[in-house]
């Protein structure tokens, strides 16, 4: 049974609703902290006319896999949303073999198709297309989705990744596109950076969050 010795104002920290109490970095007192869990937010990158959004730290052996969440990524010009990986140098040019398929459906009820499409890579160092086509620039349109990278710090295995994003293809009528990209960086060097960009123009706005999975 709990003893009722310590009430909330007996702790030498300022109470913050729904926050946890943790030892401080010197382990000689308490502080308020965020509750942990198996999906740990590491970095949030917010675009503002950005040429790219790059995650070049915190990708190491701390976590077995990393998840990127894309929230309303909006291009400055109609273009494809792409990704590449850094494998030891400063360049984002890891060799990749990938597959790509998508479902699409147009606003006038055209389409309604599921098929493999030619946005895959074979042993290429180029950026991988995640949207499959140029996306619309309308003010209310963006890209959202997720990409997971497995075991990036392994120096034994290649590096698998899988992505699923929703986008709106440029054109008339607008076309909803549900894209599935997967493959591997065919390198045994550690992957320590991931870069996202449009294949032309800037990322006008949007958020990409990187999580480590414990």
């Amino acid at each position, binding site marked *: *049974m*709990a*003893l*009722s*010795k*310590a*009430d*909330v104002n*007996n*702790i*030498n920290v300022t*109470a*913050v*609703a*729904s*926050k*946890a*109490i943790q030892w*401080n970095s010197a382990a*000689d*007192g308490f502080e*308020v902290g965020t*509750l*942990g*869990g*198996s*999906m*740990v937010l590491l970095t949030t990158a917010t675009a503002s006319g950005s040429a790219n959004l790059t995650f070049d730290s915190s990708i190491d052996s701390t976590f*077995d*896999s990393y998840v990127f969440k894309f929230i309303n990524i909006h291009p400055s010009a109609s273009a494809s949303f792409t990704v590449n990986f850094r494998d030891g140098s400063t360049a984002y040019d890891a060799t990749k*073999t*990938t*597959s*790509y*398929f998508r479902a699409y459906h147009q606003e006038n009820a055209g389409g309604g198709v*599921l*098929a*493999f499409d030619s946005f*895959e*890579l*074979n*042993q290429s160092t180029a950026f991988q297309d995640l949207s499959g086509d140029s996306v619309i620039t309308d003010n209310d349109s963006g890209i959202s989705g997720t990409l*997971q990278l*497995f*075991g990036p710090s*392994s120096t*034994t*295995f*290649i590096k*698998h*990744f*899988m992505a699923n994003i929703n986008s709106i293809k440029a054109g008339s009528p607008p076309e909803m596109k549900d894209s*599935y990209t*997967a*493959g*591997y960086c*065919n390198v*045994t060097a550690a992957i320590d950076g991931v870069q996202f960009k449009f294949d032309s123009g800037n990322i006008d706005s949007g958020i990409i969050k990187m999580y480590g*999975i*414990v």
Partner: protein
Amino acid sequence: MAISKFNYNSFNVTPVASKALAFNSDADGFTTASGSSMILIKTLTASSSGTLSFVNGSSDVVLDDTYPVYKFEFINMHPQTNDKGLQVNVSIDTGSNYNVAKTTTFFRAYHYEHGNEGGLAYQTGHDLAQGTGFQDFTEGGISNDNDCSLSGEFFLFSPSNTTFVKHFMGKFNLIKSAAGGVSINSFVAGYANTTSAVDAVQFKMNAGNIDAGKIKLYGISD
């Protein structure tokens, strides 16, 4: 300066194992709390393993009504024998038998490293129709070259429910054993056609051992 006079049972809240001590939503008292909704339950690491099994109540595994959804993550599963594929089955008798009837679908996209061939198709040879055998995660086998593997994720919904069948869904990427190297992106879904509680899940290669790799079990809370 912090006051160093409080022990774990000195707070005005009932201790709960593995939970955190947090301020309540009014910031005027304490409560127990969890972190994110995705909680790591158990990690199994293969080392020439015939099977990797998660059995509720055994070795700290929780696979019951504690969580409505369970997720398995696979990190670089490597077969000891070339061209063998990872499989799954479930148990309703805490692992005595892995033989529950399942009806499933299987499709995959693929693309060769040489770039001359790729596609997307349903694979009739890897689905089950009330089959009690193990469900394939792969079309063909994983290459056992030193740098080749399978990674992916597998969700099991409400395993302890005794009213409904038990749905599951998985997606994986692997390098198939074939001349030239092939990236395979496979999608498996289906249901264990039982109203008994599923209380154990087992993974294995369709022949030979799991040479290396990690499988991590997470509970996803409400």
